[in-house]
């Protein structure tokens, strides 16, 4: 069942992005930035975790989960060390996306030649 909801919820988040492209004429950078901020706010309200239980990869794969995991790391660290944790814990959970992007970016540049 989670596969079905992953497909539907993930697809719907992409539709929201498409509407921002087409109806509000936002650039991809503006759209993605807005979605990340929405993800951060949703996690601040405590609504993102129940969504993960419900739709799994449907909400962890879209870019909104980047905002969610940033807030999540910051809050987890703040619980242990107080306010300073908000700064120090920021990348605790998000590490995977950024590290993987950098590593495979460099590897990709080594392996592939740009298309003419």
């Amino acid at each position, binding site marked *: 069942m989670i596969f079905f909801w*992953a*497909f*539907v*919820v*993930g*697809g719907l*988040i*992409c*539709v*929201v*992005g*498409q*509407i921002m*492209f*087409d*109806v509000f004429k936002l650039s991809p*950078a503006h*759209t*993605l*930035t807005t979605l*990340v*901020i929405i993800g*951060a706010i949703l*996690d*601040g309200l405590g609504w993102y975790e129940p969504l*993960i239980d419900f739709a*799994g*990869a449907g909400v*962890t*794969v*879209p*870019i909104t989960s980047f*905002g969610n*995991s*940033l*807030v999540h790391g*910051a*809050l987890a660290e*703040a619980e242990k060390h*107080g*306010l300073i944790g*908000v700064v120090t814990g*920021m990348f605790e*959970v998000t590490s*995977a*996306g950024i*590290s*993987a*992007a950098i590593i*495979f*970016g*460099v*590897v*990709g*540049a080594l*392996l*592939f*030649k*740009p*298309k003419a």
Partner: protein
Amino acid sequence: MANQKKQKQQAQQYQSFEEKRETKRPILLNCIKAFLVGGFICFIGQLITTFYIYFFNFTEQTAGSPTTATLIFITMLLTGFGLYDRIGQFAGAGSAVPITGFGNAVISSAIEHRTEGFIVGVGTNMFKVAGPVIVYGVFAAFVVALIKTIFLQLGGS
């Protein structure tokens, strides 16, 4: 004076003419395409997530990280062989919104600028497109987490 007025009128006429001729974006069709491709990418993500939960002792909440890394690895191959661009032309936001779109933005900039050298080309330009997402994601997360932490410390729940 009269001349100016006439020019203004002409400009207005041209504008309404232009609006009429502008090709309408097929919004509904684009949304369906975005839904199908975006949903499919999340479905693949769910397959990978399930794989990590069953074979590597991750939980539903923690399996997101290895899934992300795996998806970005697949993105590297698709971007390198020029397939991701083609998917993007068809799917629009369907391939831009998932984390694979973020990976594609970083990896394609890296590949594109390798001719300028690895430090100045690849290093400098890698986050040209994806940079704003990280910058404002982090800043928004900072504000949200700060508000919530202060709220919790003041005894809210």
